[in-house]
């Protein structure tokens, strides 16, 4: 099956992704609107990938995390940095690993 790509973020990110060919874009302005849009993207059957900027994800906070936990396998959701390169200090994936595998933290060694 082929799927489309959706983007939620600031104007810069959405413009750039639109130039690259992402089908749906939403510029984040109000929290409620963005949440509704995100819900719409997540329940859509033709969207395979939703890109959300870290900043927006953080602003949505708990609701975003809840949606991530309850969503289906598709669409995939990926958080990306916006034009300021903002990435939160805590790595979500690492956090999850810590929670599941126990106190173990995976450290990658070069070579």
């Amino acid at each position, binding site marked *: 099956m*082929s799927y*489309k790509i959706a983007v939620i973020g600031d104007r810069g990110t959405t413009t*750039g992704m*639109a*130039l690259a060919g992402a089908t749906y874009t939403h510029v984040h302005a109000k929290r409620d609107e963005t949440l509704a849009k995100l819900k719409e993207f997540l329940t859509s059957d033709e969207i395979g990938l939703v890109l959300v900027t870290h900043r927006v994800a953080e602003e949505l906070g708990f609701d975003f995390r809840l949606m991530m936990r309850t969503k289906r396998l598709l669409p*995939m959701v990926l958080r990306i940095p916006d034009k300021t*390169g903002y*990435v939160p200090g805590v790595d979500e994936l690492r956090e999850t690993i810590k929670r599941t595998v126990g106190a173990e933290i995976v450290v990658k060694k070069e070579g």
Partner: protein
Amino acid sequence: MATALGVSPNRMEVMKLKKRLGLAQRGHDLLKEKMDALVIEFLEVFRKIQDFRTKALKQLSTAHRALTNCFAVMGTLETTQAARETKRELQIEISTRYLMGISIPAVEFGGAQRNALTRGYSLHTTSSVLDEAAMEFERALGLLVELAEAEAVALAIIRELEKAKRRVNALEYILIPKLKEALKFILMRLDEMERENFTRLKRIKAILEERR
């Protein structure tokens, strides 16, 4: 005591319990093996993610720089206008495959690269900086799709791992000890009954002997 454990002390129950205990132990071992396999799989994916992430983020920041440049040269309005005119029909092929019984997405994506003529905005009113920005973003998007796939796989594995762990713990710390305790209780009780019976018989024999 017997009612507390919910079993009645007889041989039938012993057999049943032994069967259950064996099954639980086997399930526990299997689940543990599954967990190990999942962890190995996960480590591989995790390494891949780190790789993809550094690459994708680097490309994305390059893309953002190109776009900022474009905003500056062409103007914000014109750039967003061009983005609106762009053909936005990028398709990614996603199928699901199975890994240790969990479904994970498998993405097939040939890359988003297009040339300036097929993008759909008017070449006449736009600058070459826009082409540059679009190209960089297409490249970034390609990398991001790869990263998204890897992260989705990792997430699926983690979820399964969590489930498996929960089950292993439930078996290891609750079900198996409970069964073992019940089994021990029944065996003790049966032994006790045998001893009781033995003394009873002795006593009866003594009484009978006295009467004679």
